[in-house]
């Protein structure tokens, strides 16, 4: 039996964007329905997952481990233009989205990231300037509770302070990585984190549990722990986990979405959601996919908002190269995350010629499975020194980068692979150009210099050029001034549809070398104000 729900706003996707937007709209008294295909994990679920990861020696234990393909939508990828570049997704399905397990690095874009085409002839320009986005970034920092210091000489201007002081620099960052950067003429600065250094709006300060994926203390920002509780108990809000939006239907004129057709994952029962406004906040892959799956309604033959053929185009991501060193001395203890980073290579490069990257480092004994390097370095003259392996691991550190790409991927529907409900999955063809590969080559050249500056003895080779894709899919439903350049307008309204908006990293015309979450939340706050203005 089909259930019908009516609301003022239907929001598909309860990740950071959807959850933040829902709280702001709900506060106006409007009726909000927030749906997500994944479950709502309880604190007991979190704890049990951590425990089972320990029990089974599975360092990669994660939230979606036990979910079926009905909850965790598959995808496919294919090498593009003869390149072996296999794209893989590290997303999570559930109330909280991928932020369930993220590292809460709250880096900002720099001003030039929004004007890449105009300034450097690469990528696409945002239809808004940094000066317009910046106040929303500041609000997002307050919304999330970002700990940071205004000590980044490479950052674009900010209009206010961080909500709280950043984490004190770790021994490694203060005594080893920071000074090494200084020797190379690079400034290491605070890495802003959505992990409080003091109690913040009901959350604990960080308690140094060093298992941030599950965050036993509850300090790290996660939408299900911060924003969803704000919705509980409100009679104008319905939060529906385990509900998959399959298709958006428009009116006959094709200028308004009228219905979201959904299925309950558990029993495949149908759900029809009628609303005045619809917002798709399904992340970098499922947002364009839903627009493509909604083709055919109201004359939108190629998918909603696709009159310019832009849905799925310019798909982008970050590449994450890294290398490991043996410092020859103990790297020190940690909080479980890096306290400093450097934006040096986001600013001090010729962006016409090469892409930018962001860099940080950490004692390898925490994050990185360094058994291969430790064993290799401890094997000499046909003898494996197990004592040497044990002694070297506390001395090892890993330097990692987050590399900007030009956005030359394509996302489309894959007719040969269907999800659990019979719909084509998203297929990604990721192309890396010469420009995209420059930063990785630069990191490869820098590796021995950085190692020397840290006084390190051994350096591993930098990770493969195509490695580390899949954490930050973006760009496939970009905002633009006109439909021939994107899918939604600067207010995130889908071209040609009066009541359909998008918010996720899929609306980024270009993504610089910073993690996207803070910008996503900034755009959600900006969209909330826009929708409130329209409503009034």
């Amino acid at each position, binding site marked *: 039996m089909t259930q019908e729900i009516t609301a003022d706003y239907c929001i598909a996707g309860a990740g950071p964007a959807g959850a933040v937007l829902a709280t702001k709209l709900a506060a106006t008294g409007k009726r909000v329905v927030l749906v997500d295909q994944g479950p709502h994990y309880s604190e007991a679920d979190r704890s049990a997952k951590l425990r089972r990861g320990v029990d089974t020696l599975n*360092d990669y234990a994660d939230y979606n481990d036990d979910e079926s393909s009905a909850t965790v939508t598959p995808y496919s990828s294919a090498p593009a233009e003869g390149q072996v570049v296999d794209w893989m997704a590290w997303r999570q399905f559930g109330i909280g989205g991928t932020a369930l397990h993220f590292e809460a690095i709250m880096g900002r874009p720099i001003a030039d990231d929004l004007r890449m085409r105009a300034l450097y002839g690469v990528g696409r320009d945002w239809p808004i300037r940094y000066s317009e986005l910046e106040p929303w970034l500041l609000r997002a920092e307050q919304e999330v509770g970002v700990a940071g210091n205004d000590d980044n000489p490479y950052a674009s201007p900010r209009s206010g302070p961080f909500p709280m002081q950043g984490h004190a620099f770790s*021994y490694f960052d203060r005594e080893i990585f920071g000074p090494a950067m200084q020797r190379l003429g690079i400034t290491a600065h605070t890495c802003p984190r959505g992990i409080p250094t003091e109690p913040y709006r009901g959350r604990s300060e960080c308690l140094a549990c060093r298992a941030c994926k599950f965050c036993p*203390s509850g300090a790290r920002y996660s939408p299900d722990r911060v924003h969803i509780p704000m919705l509980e108990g409100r009679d104008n809000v319905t939060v529906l986990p385990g509900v998959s939006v399959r298709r958006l239907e428009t009116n006959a004129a094709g200028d308004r979405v009228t219905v979201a057709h959904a299925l309950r994952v558990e029993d495949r029962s149908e759900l029809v959601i009628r609303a005045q406004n619809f917002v798709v906040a399904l992340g970098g892959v499922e947002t364009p996919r839903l627009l493509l799956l909604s083709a055919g309604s109201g004359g939108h033959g190629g998918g909603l908002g696709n009159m310019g053929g832009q849905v799925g185009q310019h798909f982008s991501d970050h590449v994450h190269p890294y290398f490991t060193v043996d410092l020859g001395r*103990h790297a020190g203890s940690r909080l479980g995350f890096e306290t400093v980073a450097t934006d040096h290579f986001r600013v001090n490069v010729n962006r016409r010629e090469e892409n930018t990257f962001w860099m940080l480092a950490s004692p390898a004994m925490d994050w990185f499975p360094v058994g291969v390097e430790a064993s290799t370095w401890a094997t000499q003259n046909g003898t494996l020194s197990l004592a040497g392996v044990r002694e070297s691991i506390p001395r090892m550190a890993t330097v990692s980068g987050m590399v900007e790409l030009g956005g030359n991927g394509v996302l489309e529907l894959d007719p040969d692979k269907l999800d659990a409900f019979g719909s084509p999955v998203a297929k990604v063809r990721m192309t890396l150009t010469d420009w995209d590969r420059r930063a990785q080559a630069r990191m490869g050249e820098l590796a021995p210099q950085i190692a020397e500056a840290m006084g390190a003895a051994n350096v591993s080779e930098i990770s493969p050029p195509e490695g580390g894709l899949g954490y930050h899919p973006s760009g496939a439903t970009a905002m633009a001034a006109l439909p021939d350049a994107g899918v939604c307008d600067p207010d995130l309204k889908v071209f040609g549809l009066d009541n359909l908006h998008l918010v996720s990293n899929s609306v980024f015309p270009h993504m610089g070398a910073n993690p996207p979450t803070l910008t996503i939340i900034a755009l959600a706050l900006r969209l909330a104000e826009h929708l409130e203005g329209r409503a009034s």
Partner: protein
Amino acid sequence: MSYELRRREFIQVLVSLPLGYAAAACAVERRTPGQTALGKLVLAVGPWPAEDGARADEFVGRFLAADHVVGLYLPESSSTILSLARRFADGAMAVGEVDLGPLPDGERELLVQLTQQIYSLVEVRFYVSSEPRWGECLGERTRYVQPPA
């Protein structure tokens, strides 16, 4: 639900962790010869000294019970594991070094793979780095800024 309530719920489940360890340890009696030999190798290659024997045995129990881990070795490499294990003295723990020269290719590759795998695990990396257990909330926030002891 308040933050404190949610946190208590989290901790209540977490404190039952040793029960999982005990369940894994109970599997000792049902080990095959291949599992017994693999357990012996884990103790020899691993970092635990004899005085940490109980902790080491607990780890071996979980190692042998984890299909995704043990499946890399058993049952396909049973004979190689048995012959490699015979090269270590009974009860050997935290062996200092191994001469790879005399080892046949299969045994050498298996030993290196096992070493790489064990020392890639966060639990083992934390142990050799004298870090408190992964997931244990330390509370005090100055430890990580101090020079290593």
